[in-house]
């Protein structure tokens, strides 16, 4: 009898912790920034438990029945918590609100459990033993849950089912209590019926669990999510719709398989084809290997060095069958050297020189990324150019972010390079811009490698002509101590979003 009692303490403690872990994990997964999510969730949860235990003193009569109802409510709210959160993220604007309401609700209910149970049990045990045993099992339950969660539950069951499973445990404890405390309860058929009803709902939930979680991730992106992973540096998501494969990094579109050839051909060939003797190439950023694929079309190239921060990204594009097919297995070529390092620091500490440098970083959405678009960076990159070499820089959209684009061009110029700005249309991006920076005068190539889908030598001059709405505007230069570009960029894209 007493073991059974304390076993239920063990179970409800485990359930309580699991819901908290689920909320924390889900929030980190969907919002990123796990430290912040976990600390605020733990904080709210503990605080809510405090509210629960405070409230417990206002419950007087019929303690057992109330305990059973509370268990059922914990089971329902906790059990459906992750389904609810997934759906809230996908279909509403108020994910954080729902998150904290759920956390506080579950916390308050869980906070009520132990004080109530102790009061129910206080007649049966010495106070000293009661406290000791209840707390012991409470701790044990928490330990069990915290071990089970990362080892078994998340990898095997996933968040939606784990929550439902533990909801079932709570409801089970409720049902079981109606038998354990028969004496104090009297009747209790209505209670048992409620228990069965809740168990049935949770059971039904597990059947639909799969649909809930994939529905949630999918509605964020227009297309079906086929892959998603949080690496140390970013969240990588791949979506697919018919033959269109799209890569998102931190929800920013990186390419669409339908038109990425336009982007990458335009990024590489106007520069590289103008350097007939080029042998050594550096790609900074561009961990998808698509620029490398274009570079390898030149038989004269002896080595391509790719410096990208994220090893998971380059591994994915080395091993994943669909993705490595996209870059034609560029990363498995012996001529290609992949280095996972911070590009700025790597350039600073490395003496190598190159004939052609491709600078393909994500847009300057923050001051830390903005550093890669400064005079200091371009000056450093220029030091790594062989005589007669040149570089090309991904420079955001000259149409949507006109000041940002011309700011990048001006910054390359201030770094002591001749600049040759050009642009093209990429359907999934819109108008997109690049700039060639060169130590010697640049002349557009008259010949290109065969088999290109977008570029033809005769069209190259057109790329360098800008219509009226993309003409240069007055801009300041982006410097490490004054990152005007980040401010231009933020303002321009905010205007677009509206």
């Amino acid at each position, binding site marked *: 009898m007493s073991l059974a009692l304390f076993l239920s303490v063990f179970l409800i403690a485990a359930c309580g912790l699991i819901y908290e872990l689920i909320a924390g994990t889900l929030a980190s997964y969907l919002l990123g920034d796990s430290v912040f999510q976990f600390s605020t969730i733990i904080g709210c949860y503990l605080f809510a438990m405090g509210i629960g235990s405070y409230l417990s003193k206002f419950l007087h009569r019929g303690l057992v029945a109330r305990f059973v109802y509370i268990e059922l409510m914990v089971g329902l709210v906790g059990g459906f918590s992750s389904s609810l959160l997934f759906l809230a993220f996908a279909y509403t604007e108020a994910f954080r609100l729902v998150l904290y309401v759920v956390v506080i609700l579950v916390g308050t209910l869980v906070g009520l459990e132990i004080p109530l149970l102790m009061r129910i049990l206080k007649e049966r045990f010495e106070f000293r033993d009661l406290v000791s045993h209840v707390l012991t099992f409470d701790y044990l339950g928490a330990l069990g849950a915290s071990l089970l969660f990362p080892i078994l539950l998340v990898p095997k069951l996933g968040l939606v089912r784990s929550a439902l499973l533990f909801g079932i445990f709570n409801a089970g404890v409720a049902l079981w209590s109606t038998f354990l405390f028969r004496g104090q309860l009297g009747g209790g058929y209505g209670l048992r019926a409620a228990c069965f009803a809740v168990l049935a709902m949770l059971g039904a939930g597990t059947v639909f669990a799969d649909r809930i979680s994939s529905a949630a991730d999918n509605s964020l992106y227009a297309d079906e999510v086929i892959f998603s992973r949080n690496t140390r540096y970013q969240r990588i998501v791949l979506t697919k719709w018919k033959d269109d494969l799209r890569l998102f990094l931190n929800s920013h579109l990186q390419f669409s398989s339908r038109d990425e050839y336009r982007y990458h051909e335009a990024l590489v060939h106007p520069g590289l084809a103008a350097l007939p003797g080029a042998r050594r190439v550096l790609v900074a950023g561009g961990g998808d290997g698509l620029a490398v694929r274009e570079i390898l079309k030149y038989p004269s190239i002896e080595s391509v060095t790719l410096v990208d921060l994220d090893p998971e990204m380059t591994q994915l594009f080395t091993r994943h069958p669909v993705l490595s097919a996209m870059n034609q297995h560029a990363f498995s070529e012996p001529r290609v050297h992949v280095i996972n390092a911070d590009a700025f620091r790597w350039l600073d500490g490395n003496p190598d020189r190159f004939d052609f440098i491709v600078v393909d970083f994500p847009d300057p959405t923050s001051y*830390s990324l903005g550093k890669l678009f400064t005079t200091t960076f371009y000056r450093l990159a220029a030091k790594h150019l062989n005589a007669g070499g040149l570089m090309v820089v991904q420079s955001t959209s000259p149409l949507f972010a006109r000041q940002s684009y011309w700011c990048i061009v001006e910054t390359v110029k201030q770094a002591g390079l001749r600049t040759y700005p050009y642009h093209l249309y990429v359907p999934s991006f819109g108008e997109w811009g690049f700039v060639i920076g060169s130590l010697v005068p640049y002349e557009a190539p008259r010949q290109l490698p065969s088999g290109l889908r977008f570029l033809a030598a005769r069209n190259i001059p057109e790329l360098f002509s800008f219509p009226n709405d993309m003409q240069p505007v007055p801009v300041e230069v982006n410097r490490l101590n*004054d990152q005007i570009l980040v401010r231009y960029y933020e303002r321009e894209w905010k205007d677009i979003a509206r």
Partner: protein
Amino acid sequence: MSTISWDSTLASGTRRQFLGLAPALLLARKTDRPIGGAFVNDSFANGHRLRDRAAFRASSRQIRVPIVIVGGGIAGLSAAWRLDKRGIRDFVLLEMEKQAGGNARWGENDVSKFPWAAHYLPVPAKGESLARELMEELGVFRDGKWDERALCFDPQERLFLHGRWQEGIEPEIGSTPKDREQYKRFNDTIAELRATGQFTIPMERGARSSPLDRGSMGGWLADHRFDSTPLRWYVNYACRDDYGASAEDTSAWAGIHYFAARDPEEKGPLTWPEGNGWIAQRLLEKLNRYVRTGAGVYRIARDRSKLRVFTEEIEYIADWVIFAAPTFLASYIIEGMPPAAGFQYSPWLTANLTLDRIPAQKGAEAAWDNVIYDSPALGYVNATHMSLAAHVERTVWTFYWSLAEYTPQQARTLLLAKDWNYWKEAILNDLSRAHPEIRQCVRHIDIMRWGHAMVRPAPGFMFSAEREKWLKPQGHIYFANSDLSGFSIFEEAQYRGAKCGDIAFR
């Protein structure tokens, strides 16, 4: 001004009460991680021995050397820099600590280099010829351009208020039209004062005895009807940050000097991961052969035309002494010197926190200097801010606290009375206002206690007869510490030191 006593700050953090809820306790314990650290480099012991005139070991050797510099802070190093430039090789610099640099000392661990106190140099204006000359020598100023890697990266400063970070340190979030009107009027008033030409760097160039010195900065604000709360916070912050004293305890002339003396041609300041320790290291590289560390001077005696300078190892017999240690020590060391009356010093506490991960940010991105509104402390400077890397995972924060809410004497007593654990908790509680999860990020906290960190420009001190008196040499003893300027900044230390180096032994 709202200065929150840190006893209440501390109390809010130590609320480990039994809640009757086992999981709560379990989780509370789970999230706390052990944090290592200690007090480092305490110079109290040395200082107290001098003060108490304790017995020192008699020097076992005598060395004759024409010039002795006492103190290896920026002032002493600058004196050595000038002597060396003049081709004088026959001198030594005696530094009490194991590491020279004084307030420009620095440290290093597996994550980064970091400063222990002075952490920046405002971009020197055209008139600051000495600072420009040194920066040119060190390659920071070349062909009329400042080294991009030494100019503080964007974003320079941010302020945490009303629950989020804003860019810049002048309070903007929640400021009213009246506040903004007063900011503008304040800036206009400062511009007028700047135009008078009396607020210069080095201060000696323009300073003329002024009635402003008689009142406090707080009083000056009140007299000019500057009553906006954020503006007063801002000015008080500047006084606490630069002089270690509240606006009420700061001479209005000095308070205004902070705002009016600078009009930089380039967005700065100049800074390095180890702060002004970078400059100290470059100077030490040039001057190493003159520098003796662990060589505290405990007595200087006149012996006919010679000066006998005693350390525990060696007695130096010199013709000239450049005394670049804090001036208040002169009466304890130099025979027959009266106490430096009127010289008050602010005690400080600085700490270096090693973080294994960067806490979440709400609002503006992490800056170099990060200030929390309404905190009794001064915020923290991020040592990895000057890294080129786009992605930084670990860092060191230098935490500054001038204890300006106490009298210097009270603060000194407190610094000595409380243990490391107490200060560690106080620091973490302060930071948790803006970074609730700070305890999960910090691995190590080393704390330095500075009993007499910097001279305090109390009302009346700038143009006092006392300060004037110490500007004159005593026979062949020259005084060079930055405290002679009435406030302590790099440029004043350099100016005082270099000036002595230029005239000594002529």
